[in-house]
Each structure stands twice: as C-alpha cells, then as structure tokens.
C-alpha cells in the first residue's frame, strides 16, 4: 500500500520552515535524551554498587580527646564496653576513618619485598568486632582474634605494621591473581610483612569515588587519631538506630570531660554525601531531559494543531472528493512521520557527536548504540503520539466545509 509519500513530501517541501524547525527540535531532543540517559545509567550503576556494609543500621560516632590527660586506649575500652552493653546494639568497633566517607588512609602493599610500589590501597583499622560492626561477610579464612588487636600507633612508632591482615576479595585478586590468598604474605612501604588471614566480599572502603573502591584491607589495630577524631561504628538491630543515636550522643557527651563528641550520625549520611554530586547530576539530567521531551512534544502537538486548522478547507475538499477519515489521519501521521524521521536521522549524528565529546571529557567508553536505537524508537513513537490527536481532529472535519466560503 502506498502511503502517498510523494504528494505529502512535495507539500512539505513547499512549506518547509515549520517542518525543519520540528525536525531540528527532535534532533536535539534525541541527542540530549540518549546521552543524558547514558550518563544517568552510569551514575545509577555507580551508586548501586554493593558495599557489603549494613549501611542502614550503622551509626558513626566521632570522639576527640583534647586535654593532656586524655588517654586513648582506656577511653576506647570504656566507650566500646558501654556501647556493646546497650540493648539493640549488634556490634561496635573503633576505627580511624569513616567507611564510604570519602576520606581515609591509603598505603601501598606489595607481594615481594622491595618491589616497585605502584598502587595504594585503602587501609582500615578495626578490632575483632569490626567485621560484625560493619556487617561484612567473611568468604574465606578467619576473623581477627582478640589477642591480635594491637595498641594504637603513637607519635614515636608511626611506621609500625601488623602481622595479620584481612583483605577484600578484589584486592586479593589484584595482588595474587587466580591464587588462594590465605596465608600469603604482603609487605608494606617499609618491607614489614603481614599474612593474609581472611577475605571479605563484597566490601567498599572509604573512597567510593576512587578507581577501585573495593581495594581494601583491614588491620587489627586500634586507631591513632592523628590529632583528629576516633571513629566508633555501631551496628544496631534493624529499626533501632534512630532511637539509639540520641541516647548514645547524650551519654557519651557527658561520660568523659576530656573529650568532645563531634557528632553521632547514621552511616547513610556519609554515603549520601560521597555520592552527592552523582545524585545531583542524576536528578538534574533526568529533570531537564524530561522537560525537553515534554517541550518537544507540545511543540509537535501545537504545530500539528495549527496545520490542521489552517488546512480545514483543503481537508474538507479532500473529504468531499472521496477521502475517508482514515485517509486524512494517515496523511497527517505520514507527514509527521516524515518530519520525525528526518529529525531522528540528524539527531543520530548529533547524538554521536555529543557522545564523542562526552567520552573525551569523562574518559569513558563511547556511547552504547543500544541507547541510540532506543532513543530513536522513543522519539518516533512520542512524535506520532503527539500528532495523533490533531490528526483525529482533522479527520472530523466534515466534507461540507469545502463548500463554505470563509
């Protein structure tokens, strides 16, 4: 069946400004839609990566000793003892930096002494309750034992290492590809050795935005606050965290006059903060793209409506000489389809160009062509839908209009 493309096309070409404008809108809309979606999906994937951490049930406490009589170890023991005795608390540990908090300690590890140290890995200090306090899953080996937990570093032995470490599976795989990491020995920046006693998976460390947020290792040591704060991590029973946070804050703020409690906060707070720019980007791109599509649709709709109203007489004439209602509908849909197709073709070129620019800016892989195919389909369908109602209105024009003068 012929869709009367040729007469429609020649009519279009005689009055092309409106058509060109609509096609141009569709082209830009396609380029934006496809690339925005590509970025949004990447951000969503980034934020959706497993952390292995029971983020929704962990509270974070920052405690900073400041007087000259403040003693780190007794203070830690007292605080942890009280925290662990609280009903509703599953586990509590002490560390030096906030998991997922975008700050912490990175140190090199190598598999042979004196090997070139090319990478730093996120080092996290915990005690024997650390894995439980984070909700991490041990997939091989064992947890730290109580007697393995070392005293904090002091200003006079800052380079001291530990004999045992627990590593993430990703780090184990990076250091010892395709080997069983348990029992393997690694060396720190001063060639001090440690044995891998356990492997956890999945896990994300303190730097969610780094290239390898899962290159993490845990050391059995109490933290040295380096002039900053000690960080307690408290994991509660599901649903109990919100009620426990004010209680914890109130008690700890008074329990020791030689320190201050900076804050007690849910771990989600820090994760969200680390992902703030990704989240903002996601919201912004989605909103603007949706608006852009809406504006384009309304434009198509309004223009089609106008076209119909200016052509009432022609439509009436066509009806009078025998065109059926669906011929009229088809005429407008084919016309709109031609415009949309032209727009989409130009849009593909624009989308690829924009995608190329983005891939350079973000040093990311080039735009996935499935997105382009999807975008083309979506815009085509939306374009036809927008023209549907005006086309129906055109079909409703009675043949008698042809015989009237304006």
């Amino acid at each position, binding site marked *: 069946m012929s869709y009367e493309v040729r007469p429609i096309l020649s009519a279009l070409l005689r009055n092309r*400004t409106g058509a060109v404008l609509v096609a141009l*809108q569709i082209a830009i809309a396609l380029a934006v839609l496809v690339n925005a979606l590509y970025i949004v999906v990447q951000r969503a994937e980034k934020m959706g990566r497993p952390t292995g951490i029971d983020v929704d049930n962990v509270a974070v406490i920052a405690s*900073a000793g400041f007087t000259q009589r403040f003693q780190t170890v007794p203070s830690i023991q007292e605080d942890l003892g009280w925290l662990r005795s609280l009903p509703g608390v599953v586990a509590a540990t002490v560390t030096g930096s906030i998991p997922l908090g975008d700050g912490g300690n990175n140190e090199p590890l190598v598999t042979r002494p004196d090997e070139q140290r090319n990478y730093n890995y996120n080092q996290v200090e915990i005690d024997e309750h650390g894995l439980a306090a984070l909700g991490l899953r041990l997939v091989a080996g064992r947890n730290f034992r109580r007697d393995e937990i070392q005293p904090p570093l002091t200003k006079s032995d800052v380079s001291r290492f530990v004999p045992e470490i627990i590593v993430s599976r990703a780090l184990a795989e990076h250091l010892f590809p395709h080997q069983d990491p348990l029992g393997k020995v690694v060396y720190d920046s001063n060639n001090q050795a440690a044995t891998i006693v356990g492997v956890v998976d999945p896990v994300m460390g303190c730097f969610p935005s780094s290239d390898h947020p899962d290159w993490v290792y845990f050391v059995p040591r109490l933290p040295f606050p380096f002039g*900053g704060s000690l960080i307690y991590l408290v994991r509660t029973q599901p649903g109990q965290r919100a009620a426990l946070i004010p209680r914890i804050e109130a008690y700890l703020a008074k329990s020791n006059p030689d320190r201050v409690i900076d804050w007690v906060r849910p771990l989600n707070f820090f994760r969200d903060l680390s992902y703030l720019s990704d989240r903002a980007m996601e919201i912004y791109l989605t909103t*603007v793209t949706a*608006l852009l599509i809406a*504006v384009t649709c309304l*434009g198509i709709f309004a223009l089609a409506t106008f076209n119909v109203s200016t052509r009432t007489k022609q439509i009436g004439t066509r009806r009078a000489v025998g065109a059926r209602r669906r011929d009229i509908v088809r005429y407008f849909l084919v016309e709109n389809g031609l415009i949309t197709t032209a727009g989409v073709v130009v849009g593909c070129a624009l989308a690829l160009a924009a995608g190329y620019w983005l891939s350079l800016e973000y040093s990311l892989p080039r735009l996935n062509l499935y997105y382009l195919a999807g975008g083309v389909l979506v815009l085509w369908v939306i374009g036809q839908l927008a023209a549907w109602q005006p086309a129906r209105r055109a079909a409703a024009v009675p043949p008698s209009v042809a015989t009237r003068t304006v």
Partner: protein
Amino acid sequence: MQGYYLRLALKSFGRNPGLTALMVLAIALGIAVCIMTLTVYHAMSGNPIWWKNDRLYAVTMDSWDPNRPYRLRHTDEPPPEMTYKDAQYLFRSGIPERKVVMYSTDGIISGVGSVPAAHLATRVTTADFFAMFEAPFLYGAGWSAGADDPAQPVIVLSRTENEKLFGGIDSVGRTLRWNDHEFRVAGVLDDWFPRPRFYDLNGGDFQQPDSAYIPFGWGTELELLNNEETDCWKPEKLDNFTDFVASDCVWLQMWVELPDGASRARMQSFIDEYWGEQHRAGRFQRPRDNRLTNVAGWLRANHVVDTDNRVLVGLAFAFLAVCLINTVGLLLAKFLNGATVTGVRRALGASRRQIFTQHLVEVGALAALGALLGLALAAFGLVAVHHMYAAAHNYERGGYQELMHFDSVGVLWAVILACVATLAAGLYPAWRIGRLPPAVYLKSQ
C-alpha cells in the same frame, strides 16, 4: 504607536491563550534552566582574588617517586603540595614580597567560660597569610613574622567562631585553650569566604575557610599533623615527628607574592638552582618541573570546574535551543494564521516595516513574560538545589550550598539571555510575515 502595538499583541495573546501560554512556558523553562546552570557555573569558575591573579603564585616542585608520576591519570601533574624541607628552604628566600607556608589541622577550643569544648579546623600558617590573601580583620590583627618561630601563643579567630566563643565582642587579648594550651586572641577576621578556597583546595574546592589560625612554629612545637592530604611515596621510617618533617612526604601549601615579571623570573631561577643542588645530591630524580602557578592557573590545574559542570552548561544551552526553536515554529504558525488580518492592514497602507515592528512588539511582550517567569522558576529551582546540598552544608565540608544563590550577575544574565534569545527567535517570524504579499491573503478563498 508602540502602545497600540502592545494592545494588539495582548489581543493576539487572548486569541490563542493556550498557544501563548505554551510559548511563554517554553521560553521561561529554557531561561530558567540556563540561569540555574550558569549561576552555579559562574560561582564555580570564579576567581575570588582576581585582582591579585598575577601576583600570587602557588609553588610546587616535582619531588615524587622517580619510577612513577604523582598521578597515574594525569601524568604531567606534579604533587600540589610541598615537602617540609623544601618549603623551609624556599621560605628563606627574600625575593617574594610576601610568602606563606601552611597546612590545616584539627584543634579543640576550650576554656572559654561555659562554652562547651568543640572541634574546629585550624590553619597552621606563617604570618603573611592574612595580608597576602586579603583576609579582612574585624578586630585586632595577625601576628608578625617573629611570632612564627619561636612560636608565640597567639590565635586569630573567624568571625563565626568569635561569635560562638565570645558572643561577637572584641575579644582581642582574651585567652582560650587550643588543644589544652593557652593562646591569646590576636585578631578576629570579618566575614571572609573566598569561593573557591583557592589557597588550599585539599579539603574540597568550596570548603569554608578555617575557624582559627595559629603561627606556623606550633606545627613542630606541638607535633601537629596535617588533617587533609598527606602523600608519601618513599619507603622510609617515619617513627616520630622529626622523621616526618625530614621525609619526602608532601603536605604543605606554599604561596609567594611576586610583584612583577622580574621577581618572578628570579624566584623561578632560585627554585631551579635549589633543585639543581638537590638533584646532584640525589633527590629530585624526576624531570625538572618547578612551577610558579598563578591563581587562575591553579584553579584550572586542580579541576575546580569539573566535567559535570561543563556538561550541564552544554545541556542547558541545548535545552534553551529546543525551547527557542519551538517558539520560532509556534510564532511562525501563529503569525501566518493571522495573515489575512495582516493583509488587510497592508492594503490599508501599513508598511512592511510597520508590520515587522508590530509583530516584534508582540514577540517582545512574550519575551518579557517568559523572562519574568523564567526568573521565578530559576529562583525556585535554586531553592530546590539548595535543599539538596543542605546535607553537605551541615557537615564540615559545606560550602557548595552557598553557590546556589542568585547574585546580581545572575539576574542580569537572565534578562539579557531572555531578551536576546527571544528577540532572535522572533526576528524571523516577524520578518517573514512582513514579507507576505498582501494581495494573496485578501482574496476570498
């Protein structure tokens, strides 16, 4: 005449209220999105001390590992911070008019009446900091270079901190305890928030300035560690603070103020000479890369305006383009639809020029409405974004939030953008309608 055209325009709006609303909305949305994005971009890309752009220079030396660059991604970038020993040596130079070596640490202030002890970010800095970066004093002043070493127990507070501790009074001469050591207030800064915080970008580009400042000598005296970025590459024992300050770890920010090109050249050769000596002695085994970077260059090198911001500006303009193209199409359709009336007017003696002006007035009225609504939408949008960043604001790393406000520049942009864009969009339809031969439209169909 213009008043008459305006009345005609309003009549014309009334004839197609839906279409008019759509056009105004399209213009408004396009402008709102552009304004929001540009406001943030403008704030992020600002140079907060542009008048000293060619006087202030960040000093960096590539003291990093001979076997690998400091950054694996950007291999040509040296470490942004200095080692203690290099900074100490260069600081002795008499070439710069002013010079500063500094870092940030954690401190706890106590001992002020019943005010509870609290943590606060403290800058450990040499004396020129305030004069160099033009930090304004509300009360008192900074300290002299003599107070840096041996370190005098003086402290400068931010205005906010002074309000918290002393209720905002002139607290110069009062004492307080900083990390349990007694300090005397030497000065209180007035409100001061350079955005971005160019002199130290380690804690976040838009972080607030520190709450307190103490002389640099306290760093070694109290063995204060850096609470921001400290990077080490060399396998070396760091068993005490003496080891640390003698190490190849980088952790200090260094800036110099050089009044002219000649002093700059002298400073550069002074650094290069030092590099040469050290190189011969076995340090600095990477290619020579000693830099004096001005403020604008420093902000660029540290990627303060990130890719996201640039992408969003591109998106905003694409959006505006769609909105305007939309408007052109709709205006064209609308004007051509009214061609019969225009034909009559032409036949009655209106010139092309008058027809053009009449339609341009209509477009102008549309633009004004769109700009107003766009401004309102942008204000609303910025409030929404503000809320999104509220979380960050309550944390120490706040500062982004302050970027999300209208400034006079933003409003000006809005108005200019709205007028230029819409008039540009309306020009073609108005011209086109003026060109129509009146006879065709006068004929009865």
